[in-house]
């Protein structure tokens, strides 16, 4: 069962990333990326890392994607990259891709050489929960204050005149 799911998630994520790169419209690309993130989350789940899986979906597929779409809303999505900048964009993309490849290579080498470690306590959901509500309770509570300040500030900025 796990093997089947692994292949399904892997194929879906690779296919979604390909579709993201190949789709012309930025908004479509962003939506394909959501699918890629979701199937990556599934892969993390299969690796017995439920917390990473959930965070992958909540933060990447949820919060980061909203930010992406928000930026897309503010730019002219149809225009694409102007011609004179295309070569520059291509060169930058190639350099970044090579850097990423080197990084993954280094990480993989050190992981393959090291003996397989047991899943450490620190990534188990229960342990994280305990940390969050015991050691880091105060920062956690401040975060709620932060979110409230953001909400009130946003409402204050968009509110119609005279509180109507």
């Amino acid at each position: 069962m796990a093997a089947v799911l692994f292949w399904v998630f892997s194929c879906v994520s690779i296919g979604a990333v390909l579709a993201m790169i190949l789709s012309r419209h930025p908004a479509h690309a962003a939506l394909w990326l959501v699918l890629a993130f979701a199937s990556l989350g599934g892969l993390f789940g299969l690796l017995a890392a439920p917390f990473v899986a959930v965070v992958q979906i909540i933060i990447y597929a949820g919060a980061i994607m909203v930010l992406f779409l928000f930026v897309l809303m503010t730019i002219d999505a149809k225009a694409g990259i102007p011609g004179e900048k295309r070569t520059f964009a291509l060169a930058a993309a190639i350099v970044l891709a090579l850097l990423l490849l080197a990084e993954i290579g280094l990480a993989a080498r050190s992981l393959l050489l090291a003996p397989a470690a047991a899943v450490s306590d620190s990534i188990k959901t229960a342990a994280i929960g305990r940390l969050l509500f015991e050691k880091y309770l105060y920062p956690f509570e401040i975060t709620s204050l932060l979110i409230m300040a953001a909400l009130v500030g946003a409402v204050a900025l968009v509110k119609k005149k005279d509180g109507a």
Partner: protein
Amino acid sequence: MTLPTAVFPLAVTAFGAIAVLLLDAFGKRDSKTPLAVLSLMILAASAVLAGRLWGRSAFGFGGLMRLDDAAILVSMIVLLAAAFTVLLGWQWNRRLDAAFGEFYGLLLLAAAGLMIMAQTADLLVVFLGLEVFSVSAYGLTGLKRNDDKASEAAVKYFLIGSFAGAFMVFGLAILFGLNESFGITQTAACLGTGLPAQLGFGFLLAGLGFKLALVPFHMWAPDVYEGAPTPIAGFFSIAPKAAGFLVLSRLVAAVPKDVWKGLPIFPFLYAVAAATLIIGNLAALRQKNLKRLLAYSSISHAGTMLIAVLAGDGASLLFYLAVYLFMGLGAFAALTAMSAPGREYVHLDDFAGAGFRYPWIGAIFTVLLLSLAGFPPTGGFLAKFLVFSAGVRAGLVPLVVLGVVTSLIAVAYYLRVIVAMYMRDPAPGVDIEAENPPALLVLFLGLVGVLQLGLFPANILHFIRQAAASIF
């Protein structure tokens, strides 16, 4: 389970902010006076609760919250600044069409964020407190929604502030990776260990530098001060400085004395202080808009405070902050008083002849400007004197010389305002609504504070020394 008493001052301010917001949402809509009164009561209660812990160093949340004497003093400065801002906004908000209940709620939240920053020795909590302040500050900056300048200021502040926040998180991540702790003591101890620690610390300082408006991270300050409601600009000029400089001096104090001057961070901060003094004062010379002038003036004062941090002298830093609370916010009170329904007069030409037309505003504003320039017998003189002598004791002679020279340059732009008020013919078309008791009260308190701290500083210096001893 009994709650630790250390939580109360912050809890009162934070829950008070929620109460004010609820009262605004469900209370009467036509008058904002109950909100202002409630805010003042909350701020007073919080200050009393904090004052009761003086000399006892209370802790909460497993040590993440640390209410030592320095934290209490800075919290008092922040609370007093917020109370002054409430008083200034009382009439101003109605006149300038920014009469929103969110003014008070966001102001209390901003004060709570700064108290969080001051009352800890943990960098993660510092960051979160700073963000609570910043996020409320973005909202406060843009309160005048029908004003292009205000929208521009809010967007600029938001973008640059987010950028600074990202810098800080990056620095914190590097430092946490190095020593698996956010504690200021542990972080400072790893500073001498190599390049990654220096880099992380540099990012952290850059983030703090943005919020404190130190050169070269100051570009946002004049625009934000100009666009923000005038009372809020006054709050920005002192409150974040008080909390930010306390954090900075906690960091510096935690670094062992023998390695401190050998670290690359030291020349970096040295250069920042020099640049802040020079650019802040030179740029202020060219300003015709008094809000922008006071913005650059507050940048240059931040440079002087940085000398105290570099010298490792907490007492002169805290005294400077206490004096700046009265003279900085007092100066903004004078600008706030120069307003009429639908318009405010903050251009230098608007102040021409104001000294004779509005004798009270003119006279007190003159004393406050002299204090900002550092003339005896005001508090501004004594504050500068204490900082400079601490700098000399710590061997920072070139920086102190630069501080003295730039202070002399500063006299030029402060005196220009006074000359305009008393030696030029009254400006046509300036017609302020003089009836503004709360703002005049703040002006008066500013005058009292500046003279009290300048003439009879002994009592307060006693408390400040006690507070400085607890920084670390």
